[in-house]
């Protein structure tokens, strides 16, 4: 029973991270129609910022986390301005551009951090919360979960309670109809990639003290993000959040009871099954031509 409760906690924590980068990916795809293959590398840039500024130069963690968000947002905005906007009418070109950015960011990370071993960031929050004498949760992971929930709640408020959020959702639903209503597509695209990149930067910054940091860490991130996006329903923000939590719990429980290798295989099988049985995902909507 202890293992069961611990697995739920671990699954929720992991789900928070998954949701942060999956929602960003969905947001960019929904509004701009671009499958951003460099999204994992945006997470990586966030983690590298923490390593470089916090671990290497001693700047406090929270200000560095904010800096990581700003840096990754900046990278996202540059991608929008110089890559995605000029190729707005060609989704394939946007996809190829994002693959190019993926490699460029990996090389920049190698130049900045040097070749060699993965980088490590000492946890800014030491210690472990012990509940009921058996549930042991490191404060760093609790912090990550709390910030993830806060960020997603803020995003939900922004999307459902503000005019800008409504406009963003309108563009995601139907870009042409939104444009006919006077919504500035370019402005909304900038906001979408800005928010998506900021969430990726936040995810990277939160994960940095908990994982191995290297230029290729985005690879695992993007695979997870794709699984979550497909299971949740391509283009569905709420679907991405639900799928992130469900997938994280699924992955955690399979890892615990059947092993990590089986969990990896099961994750990919799950994605394939959803594509076959319910191509629209949990929350996706079938669109007729």
């Amino acid at each position, binding site marked *: 029973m*202890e*293992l069961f409760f*611990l*697995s739920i906690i*671990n*699954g929720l*924590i*992991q789900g928070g*991270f998954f949701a942060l980068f999956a929602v960003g990916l969905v947001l960019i795809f929904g509004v701009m129609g671009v499958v951003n293959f460099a999204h994992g590398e945006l997470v990586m840039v966030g983690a590298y910022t923490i390593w470089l500024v916090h671990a290497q130069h001693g700047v406090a963690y929270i200000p560095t986390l904010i800096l990581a968000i700003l840096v990754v947002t900046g990278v996202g905005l540059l991608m929008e301005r110089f890559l995605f906007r000029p190729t707005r009418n060609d989704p394939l070109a946007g996809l190829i551009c994002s693959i190019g950015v993926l490699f460029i960011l990996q090389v920049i990370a*190698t130049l900045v951090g040097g*070749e*060699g*071993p*993965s980088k*490590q960031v*000492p*946890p800014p929050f030491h210690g*472990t919360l012990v509940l009921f004498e058996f549930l*042991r*949760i*490191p404060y760093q*992971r609790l912090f990550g979960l709390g910030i993830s929930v806060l960020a997603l709640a803020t995003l939900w408020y922004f999307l459902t309670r503000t005019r800008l959020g409504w406009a963003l959702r309108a563009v995601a639903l139907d870009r042409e109809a939104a444009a006919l209503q006077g919504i500035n597509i370019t402005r909304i695209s900038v906001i979408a990639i800005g928010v998506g990149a900021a969430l990726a930067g936040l995810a990277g910054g939160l*994960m940095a*003290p*908990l*994982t*191995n940091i*290297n*230029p*290729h*860490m985005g690879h*695992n*991130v993007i*695979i*997870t993000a794709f699984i979550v996006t497909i299971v949740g329903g391509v283009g569905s923000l709420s679907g991405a959040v639900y799928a992130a939590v469900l997938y994280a719990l699924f*992955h*955690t*429980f399979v*890892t*615990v*009871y059947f*092993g*990590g*290798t089986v*969990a*990896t295989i099961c994750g990919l099988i799950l994605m394939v099954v959803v594509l076959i049985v319910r191509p629209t995902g949990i929350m996706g909507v079938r669109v007729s031509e």
Partner: protein
Amino acid sequence: MSFSRRDLLRASVASVVAAGSGTFSGNLLAANKTVKIGMNIPMTGDYAPWGLPGLYGCQIVADDINAAGGVSIGGDKYNIEMVAYDHGYDTEKAVQGYKKLVLQDKVKMVMMLGGSTVASILPWAQRRKMLTTTLLPSDITEKSEYLIATCESHPLYNVTGVDYLAENFPEAKTAAIVTNNDAEYGLQSAATYKAAFEANGIEVVDVNLHGFDITDFAPIVSSVLAKKPDIFCMATSFYVTPLMEQLYHQGFKGKIISCTLDFYDEIIAKTSQEFVDGTIFQFPDFDDPKLNEDIVNFPNPGDFDAKYRAAHPNDWSAVSWEYPAILLNWIEGAKAAGSVEPTDVLNALKSNSRPEFIFGGGHWWGKELWGLDNAVVGFWPVVVVEGGKARIKEFRSVSGWLKRNKDLLIKHMKELGLRTV
């Protein structure tokens, strides 16, 4: 008064230095030929910690030798030039790099990490009769005459750590093994650890295999600790830090044994010194006083350690001294052969039934497991973290263990589907 192998090495280095610093040093250096030694290794990517630090180490050894006037081989003086190619642990790049080193750079030996990258170049290396080294003797096959493993006998040396643990902590009766699910590193280590635990009457309660896509080790550690092992064994090197971190947070109080503990100062920073103290592993720091014992065949390890850490303060890993040790093996072989040609050096090395081995007691082995006696096994250090510093506790014989338990090892390798003869 005895004259040890270590004294001989020191005397050789001292004499070369003396000659090089004399009046004729300029002439000597000017007359030197150059022999190129290739390194076809991962310098970027996930495997970079097992490539790049080795290049740094070799460069230090080569610079020292060259500064001292070079090395005498067959009546000629040679300077050593290291030529490296980064294959990023990609098999296609490994083939490109190997051909570039051999055909374009005309190196006389190629050092590699091992695994699939070695398998990819092996047929070509055999045809070219190019001397190649690996850190994974499991790469050796019946037909790989030109592939040798003269330093690291991965993962056979792990048995020494288990023997030490069993002798010193007899109350530890159960063990759980965690490793990555691959036949090159993880499963080889897991089979060896299983055999070593069984040889010591320790029950293995879990073998937890995971892929390379894990970003969160909390579920894995939770799952393993639920089986209440006395010993947590990490038969991996990729994920030691996050595993140790999770063990710390989940309150593990038993013994920890690991193949490597690279960058243990970072692990201490993420956990605590008290927690990391007592961890048993296999790769020493080179400022360890025990490396000054006579059985160790590495000239001035403390000096090497100081130079290395001054030049590359954050890059010390298990391979920092392993590739240099192989380079020193090659020099001994070339001196004995009186030639730098790959076949001559290989024959000279193989004809020595008691080859130089970094920790002493070496002999050629491997036929019974891989089909060819092309790996050198001997003594290997058992290292324990004490007071936040890695310290060698003792040297133990891998050869002796293999004599007693070879069949047990083969049984566990077969159980995990690994290749044996």
